[in-house]
């Protein structure tokens, strides 16, 4: 939405300029170029973020081992948080502002907040009752008009567990994979809100969730509808992209030249956004050969896949992923739950990384999101056992800058750099150890979790008055 917002501002500025012209400039003849009133168009941001950061004290964490999320490591490091951003990061001689709250991080680790690029929290919330199954619009294989954000239940207790046990500060909530075009995904700040808009990451681009492989063809083939096969999957996707190109031509022409406003199609709005580079494609895909097909299709229609999700066979085409600049978001060790996951191996993540491609650890799971650090640790160790020696701090890119970039928020969060959002976790030990948990978590510089302070532990509406309310979960 950064782009769309900017576009809106430009339009607004143009309108003001045009108005200014009519005031101060003498009227021009009809033969002169007509004053260009931009054609009325649709909002790219009808459900704008109302997120605001909560107050935070100027805070300096000292003496900790810092993984900066971009591959850097600082021993005995200092991280200063102020005004919602990382004010400074450096060695022990880093200047600490007078009056800052000092936190002794010796023996502890500091990382940027974990980012999960694949979550269904809010859309498949707890309790997982039928009334809460809002993650898949299983009524047609092309449902690009639905937006995951409209299913998000902000009271899902899963958000709180992801924060307190997982150190997750941003997450991308996607529609499910029943459909070829599942709809738009939304990036959230992991700060509780009464509304989805209060959680919405300001300025983050939307994504389009797509899916290849078994799920769409099974869901619709089982109803004797297209697609009923993998070739049917691709055919429906290509036909849809061809329609989207036509839609985009009409609207581009209208927004440039005016005339009669073309008909609106909400699904096509999303696809047009992809073709315009404003909306990022997050593509569920397991098998290597299918990922190759998807990348060719993307070239055919002029868009780019940001990341393949699940990507159980990414290791077989790590070179292709690198060449195409497509990330792979993966589990550490899942395999075998379905046919297209049969070739899952424990070294997928390090093999992809080692080939120079962009590797991401994702959860797709309300429990897994609580231990993404441990998933990265297992993958890292399995890589080392086969001789792929990746340092701990470089492996943190799988949870830091890589998912941030694949979500289009890499300039804002995902790593600890001066000026970036102060999304920070202080861990009570090495974050790749099974024995380690978050001690404190800041989001935009506000302390949202403190393991030593029960008042800094969120309890959802749903859990109030229930057995175990406010318990350490």
């Amino acid at each position: 939405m950064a782009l769309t917002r900017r576009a809106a501002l430009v339009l607004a500025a143009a309108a003001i300029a045009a108005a200014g012209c009519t005031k101060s400039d003498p009227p021009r003849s009809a033969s002169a170029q007509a004053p260009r009133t931009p054609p009325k168009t649709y909002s790219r941001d009808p459900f704008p973020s109302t997120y605001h950061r909560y107050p935070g004290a100027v805070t300096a964490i000292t003496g900790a081992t810092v993984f900066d999320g971009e591959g850097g490591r600082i021993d005995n490091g200092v991280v200063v948080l102020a005004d919602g951003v990382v004010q400074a990061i450096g060695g022990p001689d880093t200047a600490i502002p007078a009056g800052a709250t000092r936190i002794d991080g010796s023996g502890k680790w500091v990382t940027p907040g974990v980012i999960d690029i694949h979550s269904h929290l809010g859309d498949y919330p707890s309790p997982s009752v039928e009334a809460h199954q809002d993650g898949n619009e299983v009524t047609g294989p092309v449902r690009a008009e639905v937006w995951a954000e409209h299913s998000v239940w902000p009271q899902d207790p899963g958000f709180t567990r992801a924060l307190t046990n997982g150190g997750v500060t941003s997450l991308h909530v996607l529609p499910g994979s029943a459909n070829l075009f599942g709809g738009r995904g939304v990036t959230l700040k992991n700060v509780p809100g009464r509304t989805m808009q209060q959680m919405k990451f300001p300025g983050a681009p939307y994504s389009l969730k797509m899916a290849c492989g078994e799920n769409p063809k099974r869901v619709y083939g089982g109803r004797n509808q297209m697609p009923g096969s993998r070739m049917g999957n691709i055919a429906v996707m290509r036909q849809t992209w061809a329609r989207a190109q036509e839609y985009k031509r009409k609207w581009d022409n209208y927004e440039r030249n005016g005339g009669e406003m073309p008909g609106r199609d909400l699904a096509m709005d999303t696809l047009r956004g992809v073709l315009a580079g404003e909306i990022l494609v997050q593509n569920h895909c397991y098998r290597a050969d299918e990922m190759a097909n998807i990348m060719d299709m993307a070239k055919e229609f002029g868009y780019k896949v940001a990341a393949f999700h699940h990507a159980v066979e990414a290791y077989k085409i790590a070179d292709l992923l690198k060449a195409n600049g497509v990330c792979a978001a993966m589990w550490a060790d899942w395999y075998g739950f379905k046919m297209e996951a049969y070739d899952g191996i424990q070294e997928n993540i390090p093999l992809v990384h080692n080939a120079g491609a962009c590797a991401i650890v994702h959860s797709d799971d309300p429990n897994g999101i609580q231990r993404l650090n441990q998933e990265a640790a297992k993958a890292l160790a399995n890589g080392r056992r086969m001789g792929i020696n990746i340092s701990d701090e470089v492996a943190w890119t799988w949870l830091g800058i890589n998912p941030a970039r694949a979500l289009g928020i890499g300039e804002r969060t995902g790593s600890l750099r001066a000026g970036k959002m102060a999304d920070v976790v202080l861990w009570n030990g090495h974050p790749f150890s099974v024995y380690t948990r978050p001690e404190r978590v800041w989001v935009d510089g506000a302390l949202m979790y403190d393991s030593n302070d029960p008042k800094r532990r969120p309890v959802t509406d749903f859990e109030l008055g229930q057995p175990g309310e406010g318990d350490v979960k």
Partner: protein
Amino acid sequence: MKGSSANRKTLQARKKSVRAELVEALSFSAVGKRSKALRQAQGERWFAGLLLAATSLLAAPAFAQTVAITGGTVALGDGSEPIEGGTVVLRDGRIVAAGRNVAVPAGAQRVDATGKWVTPGIVAGFSRVGLIEVDAVSSTNDVSAGNSPFSAAIDVAPAINPRALAIQVNRAGGVTRAIVAPGTAKSIFAGQGAVIDLGSDMEAVTRARAFQFVELGETGADEAGGSRAAAHVLFRNALREARDLGRFSSPISGGGGAREPRANDQRDLPLEEVPDNRLLSAGANRPDDVLLTRFDAAALVPVLQGRQLLLVHVERASDIIQVLALKKEFPRLRLVLVGATEGWTIADRIAAARVPVIANALNDLPSTFEQLAATQSNVARMRAAGIPVALGMINDDEARQVRLARQQAGNMVAVGRVPGASGLSWGEALATITSAPAEAVGMGGEIGSLRPGRRADVVIWSGDPLENSSAAEIVLIDGVQQPLDNHQTKLRDRYRTATEGDLPKSYER
């Protein structure tokens, strides 16, 4: 008003796998089979060296040899803390001695485990290992049988495939035994589960018909027709039919069928296998008003008599209390609670009933209304109350990922470092995935620890076995060294680099 049956089935599937993209596999599967599981350098040089040594030590005739594993950090699996520089001595497939100051017998072959950790093999506390190759491929999924007329009579033993990928992969992950349960389909009774080993031979079953598995929570309510009350009536009726059948008949084979149980002490189970009670004589008269097939009723006779364990899956506190109350009505029942997510809220009652628990370690979400009090402190709080607690994977990757048990145990230590939470000591945590599950199914004398006389299921680890960075390097089952390579390790080796060499990838192996 509850949803339609189809919806409830879907719902239950979703409970078990919130992964959205997996959900469809269940909900919309054309085959409609109900899979509960749908849900799945330097060290190397050392390894090679030890492997060579160990291979020569433990090759065929070596089975009868005495082997001493020395120098490693030894954890017995019985709840005690690890011992640095410990020794493990094994002979004839059994543990002779393990611990500190254990003498190495003269002539013993030594395996140097300096810098390594040595533990009993992991025992998967509740699993479906060996019953599934690919969850969503119904032809490979033998967990439940929705179109079978049978329920309690179902015996998983013949369905176990020792060559299942999950057996190979989890063996490589240091899991040596597993408690394998069937899943329910159309009855609250799933059938009889087995204890198996994960060895590379074709004889996987350690004990067939080790227990009967029954659902008495939300799932049970669904299977019984829609309510918990109906499930309890169905349960009582089933035991009545078993009692009537048992009264009028006697087994035609498999001695000891009518023997009285020794005691209600669950830690004192007889070790012999329960006979196949489907072989009860055909002469038994049955009244007309029966719901169970003869085989199903016969299968519940040993449950009623206390000769076969009854594993009961319940999560909600009130459901647990109702299950414990069954012992008043059927005093010989030998119960094991499976799940018990809300157990910590009534831990004193479970402890007083002396019923062991097999729990999911990391349930901390109110994923259903029967798990509202879920917390990762559940296991440690129940332990602190004196309840024997083992870890299991209840409807959560239990067919393929039991190797994650050690990560879960490690997390039970981690949670103890969070203020206000409850955790386990390291030794207790290891016990929850070794001796505790073995004891829960009455096999603590055979497996699950390095105490003398136990089967020599021993794993040598690269480091602390509960840590994310560690891996199994040598796995012994009954004293026999196991192969650790499999489909996955071969794929790894083939794709060390993704690109082709002189020939296509299919030629690389």
